[in-house]
Structure formats: C-alpha cells, structure tokens
C-alpha cells in the first residue's frame, strides 16, 4: 500500500522525466558520463560543497548513463521519503501511514529543493526517516542494527549538509545508558561517512571561510504576507523566488500551515507515548534545532552573528543557506501531524475517520498542486547539443586546463529555455575546467573562493589575453548573456566553431597529460572516500547476512 502511494506521488511529481534527456535546473547537472577527475573527487581550489557527491556520480556513471542515474536518484528520493515516513509513524491505522507518506513527500521543502536542483539534499531528506528508524533499533539494542543505520545514513552523507544532518540525528537518538558500545560504533561510522568532505575541506586551497554577503542573500524568504518564519514553519522559505512554487504565495497558505501546526500539536502526545521513552523529546530537539538553524539568517541578532561566523569561522558557510536544515524539522512535524489527525478521528465512526484521513492526505496536494509534473513544467529534460560532444572529444585528445567564457557560474542556454543551470562544462569535459564561482542573487554579489579564477578574472578585467596564462583551451558558450572581449582571445587558434560552443586552443600552453597525482592532500581525500565506501560495504555485507553481528 505504502509503496503504491509512494510510486503514485513519484509518478505525479516526476512525470516529465519520462521524456528522454537531462533535466538541467539550477544546481542539478547530470551529463552522459561524468569523468573521474581530481577536480571533482578532491577540488583543490573550491570548497567541497559537492564532495563526495561528484565522486560518487563519476564512479556510478562509469557503469550507468547519467540520464538513468538522474531518474534513479530523483524517483528514489521521492519514493523512499514517502515510504520512510509512512513506515516510521507509530500509527494505529493504515490510513494514517498514507497521510504521513503523502505529507512528507509533498512538502514545500521537497518542492523547493527539487526546483533548485539540490538532489543530494533530497537524498538526505529521503534517508532521514530510515535513519530515525534504524537509530531507534540501535536505541532498543536490536542485534545488527548498526549496519542498517550505516546503510540508511550513506545516501545522506553524499553532501556535507546531509552528512551533518545524519550525524546530528544519530547523535541525538542513539546514545543512552547501556548503549555505549553501539553508540560509539554508530557515531564512529557516521564520522567516517562524513570524512570525505571533512578531509577535503581541510586540504582545499580555497580556505574555509566565505563571503558574508551570502548570509543575507541565502536567508529564509517570506513566501506570502505571513513572513519568513511562517514560511519556515510550513517547511518552505527557501531564499530563491524562482525555486518556490507559485502556490506558496497564496493568501490562504499560512492558514494551511496553522492547521498543520495545530494537528502536529494534537499529535505530539500520541507520538511521545508510542515511541520509546525520551525519543519524542529528542526528535523535538532535532526539529527545534533544524528550525533554529533555518531561521538564523532572519532573526535579529543571529543574522549578525552568522555573518561574523561565516567570515571568521572555517566551515560556518554551511549555515548561510540554513533553510536546508529544515529537513530535521519536517519529519517530526509530519509524524506529529499525521498522528494528530488520527487522534482527532479516534472516537469517530470508521467511515467518517477514513473520510477525514483521506482529506488529510489530500491537503498537501490541494495546498501546493504545482509541485506536480516537475513543478508545473519547470523540470523538463533536454538534450545537450552535438557541439558539446565535439568539444569534449577535442579537449580529451589534447588534455589541458579549460577556461569557460563568458565568466559566469550559472548559465541560461537557448536549448534549455527559461531555465538557469550551473555550468555543466566541468562535469561534461574530462579536462580541468575553470568556471567563475561568483554568485549573483538579485543585486547582491556573493564572492567565490577559487583563487585561480579570481586571478584570471582580474587579468581579463584589464583586457589582457588568456594566452600565456597556462590555460590550454577556451570554450566560448554562445546564446547566453555576458560578453567576451576579443582581446581575451588574442593569440589563440580557433579549433571548433559551432552554433553553441566555440573552442580555442593556446598552442603555446603546456599540455597537461594528467593532473598532478603526487599531491598527498588529494590522496588523503581519496583515502577518506575509500574508508567511507569500505564502511558502507561492510555494513551491506553484515545486513545481508541477516544475523546478529558484533556491532
């Protein structure tokens, strides 16, 4: 039943992905076969925001085409989110499980993070109910529970935010009297899962701090008249207006949020009674922590503190888009709300109860119907033009550093109309690609961290040519705003001139046959990644054996 409901929700949300091609939207970039390059596995010049996600995608796309992987992760995220919530809720009725499943898979959080393309975060969101479920088994002292917990947390740990969320959940739910050994094992395993991005952050040349302008730019946003805190209370409030479903601006949306909160309040009691002692309080702490982190950028006083931290404390930049931590709030909210409806109808006639529960399951869809069909058409697959294959082949024949022009982190291609996407070139080409990492949010410019691109930007601003800088290839991407000064291309030879891409080569630039393999810092990241994979592999073997383990 739950799987059928989850499959229906996934089909309704992701129906456009039935068409062929790649859905390219904001941070969601998939390519036919992502190269296994140092730049993606252990970025030396940027913060490890996509570590180990890029490495995992690179590994998987050696076996599975990128278009298929995109569908697998997106469908998997929606299905496992729904089934996980439905499975986790300690309900007495099957219909309550359906309410929880639909409510968790049809949240503004899921919609907004899907529409900004952060599929890694969606995996963490989907894994969260399973992490809680597995943590409760460890909490109960069940044999073989730790390997299951590791397997549940592994998909979450492919991004730093997801990894932190998983670690915080386990740290809150597992420890307790008489569970010291399993707690240490579980937390140790979670630490190893987080090791790739932690090590990458320690060894990157980008430093650990970021531009404090990002705090204001990425703070929670009001979606309607009720303000940003009300948006967060309803699990919405992402900073981007373009990633917010239009229905969220509706006049009655705060009323629906109020109904949700009231139901959650009614369901808090049953949740507390039906979970093992103390667990509901810990889930409450998880929810409160998530909500607080999400609100840091908009609360008076905390926004200034966050600005200071982002500028001075390495790693604090993770908190600037705090709304992403709202996943920890969304799950307890949905569990409580589903139980609240169940409690409300507990003494009612069976037919009436089923009717009300059916209405409760439909409420999230009725309030935000424009999540359907990939956010009402925003998620639509397209094909990369033939130019891209040609440029990839040419640059692969003669390896060297590639510069993408015009300088811009995000692009709006004519072949992917009305959509903005992170430049796919670094993931499409096997060479190292330099792209701008400056972010513009409305009028606010958030500086990037890559020192190499900063140097090149300065040079280009002075009107000097790319030739002689060590860059072997320059790819000019047409049909997008931004200008390319002909002076920048002086001394370069045109190798390919297509409708969408023009490729230039600097014949004097030294060829780079392979990226420096001797850097021990990068090998440290590989070692951390290997350790994480080993832990996952060991956990999988332990779980498959289906017998009590020393864990």
């Amino acid at each position, binding site marked *: 039943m739950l799987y059928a409901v989850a499959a229906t929700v996934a089909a*309704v949300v992701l*129906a*456009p992905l039935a068409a062929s091609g790649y859905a390219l939207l*904001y941070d969601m970039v998939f390519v036919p076969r992502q190269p296994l390059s140092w730049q993606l596995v252990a970025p030396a010049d940027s913060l490890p925001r996509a570590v180990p996600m890029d490495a995992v995608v690179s590994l998987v796309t050696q076996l599975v085409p990128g278009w298929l992987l995109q569908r697998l992760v997106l469908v998997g995220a929606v299905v496992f989110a729904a089934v996980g919530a439905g499975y986790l809720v300690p309900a007495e009725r099957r219909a309550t499980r359906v309410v929880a499943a639909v409510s968790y898979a049809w949240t503004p959080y899921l919609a907004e993070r899907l529409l*900004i393309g952060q599929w890694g975060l969606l995996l963490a969101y989907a894994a969260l109910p399973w992490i809680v479920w597995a943590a409760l088994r460890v909490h109960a002292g069940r044999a073989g529970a730790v390997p299951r917990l590791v397997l549940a947390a592994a998909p979450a740990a492919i991004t730093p935010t997801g990894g932190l969320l998983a670690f915080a959940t386990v740290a809150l739910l597992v420890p307790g009297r008489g569970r010291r050994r399993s707690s240490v094992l579980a937390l140790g395993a979670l630490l190893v899962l987080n090791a790739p991005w932690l090590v990458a952050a320690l060894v990157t040349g980008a430093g650990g701090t970021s531009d404090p302008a990002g705090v204001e*730019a990425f703070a929670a*946003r009001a979606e309607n008249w009720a303000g940003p805190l009300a948006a967060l209370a309803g699990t919405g409030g992402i*900073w*981007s*207006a*373009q*990633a917010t479903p*239009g*229905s969220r601006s509706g006049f009655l949306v705060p009323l629906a949020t109020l109904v949700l909160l009231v139901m959650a309040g009614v369901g808090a009691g049953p949740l507390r009674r039906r979970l093992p002692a103390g667990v509901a309080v810990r889930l409450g702490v998880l929810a409160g922590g998530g909500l607080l982190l999400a609100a840091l950028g908009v609360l008076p006083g905390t926004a200034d503190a966050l600005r200071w931290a982002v500028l001075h404390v390495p790693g604090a930049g993770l908190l600037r888009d705090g709304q992403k931590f709202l996943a920890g709030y969304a799950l307890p909210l949905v569990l409580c709300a589903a139980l609240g409806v169940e409690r409300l109808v507990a003494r*009612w*006639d069976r*037919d*009436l109860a089923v*009717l*009300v529960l*059916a*209405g409760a399951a*439909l*409420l999230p*869809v*009725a309030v*935000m*119907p*424009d999540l*359907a*069909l*990939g956010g*009402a*058409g*925003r998620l*639509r697959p397209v094909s990369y033009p033939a130019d891209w294959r040609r440029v990839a082949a040419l640059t692969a024949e003669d390896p060297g550093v590639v510069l993408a022009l*015009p300088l*811009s*982190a*995000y*692009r*709006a291609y004519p072949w992917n*109309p*009305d*959509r*903005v996407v992170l430049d796919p070139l670094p993931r499409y080409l096997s060479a190292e690609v330099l792209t701008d990492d400056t*972010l*513009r*949010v*409305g*009028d606010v410019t958030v500086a990037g961290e890559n020192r190499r691109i900063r140097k090149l930007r300065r040079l280009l601003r002075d009107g000097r040519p790319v030739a002689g800088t060590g860059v072997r290839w320059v790819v000019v991407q047409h049909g*997008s*705003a*931004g200008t390319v000064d002909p002076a920048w291309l002086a001394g370069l030879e045109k190798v390919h001139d297509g409708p969408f891409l023009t490729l230039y080569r600097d014949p004097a630039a030294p060829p780079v046959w392979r990226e420096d393999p001797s850097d021990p810092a990068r090998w440290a990241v590989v070692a951390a990644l290997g350790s994480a994979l080993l832990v996952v592999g060991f956990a999988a073997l332990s779980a498959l054996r289906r017998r009590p383990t020393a864990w």
Partner: protein
Amino acid sequence: MRKALTLLVSGLVAALLGVLALGGVAAAATSSAEEAKDAAKSAREAAQKAGKPDPFTPEIYGTR
C-alpha cells in the same frame, strides 16, 4: 442527526480538497510547458518593473 451532519461536512471538505488537489495537478499536467514559460515571463517582467536584473540571465543564480 449529529453524526450525519459531521459525516456530511467532513465529506464535503474531503471532496473539496480532492477537487482542489486533482484540479491543481490536472492544471499542471495540461499546461506545464506554457505555465513554465509564463512563470519565467512574469518573473522577467516583475524584475524589469522593480528595476532589478533579469533572473533568467546567466549571471543570476536567482532573486529573492
């Protein structure tokens, strides 16, 4: 009498939610491409009116 009334009201609310949900999903299904284009156009026009940059030019990650 009270039970019948509760059943009627609950049924009406559930039906309304059903109609809203299915209607919304159907609307998204029938005009998804056009809606996306319209949404992009509206965002462009709103930005233009507010004297802000076009959110669908490549330099812009998004607007608040």
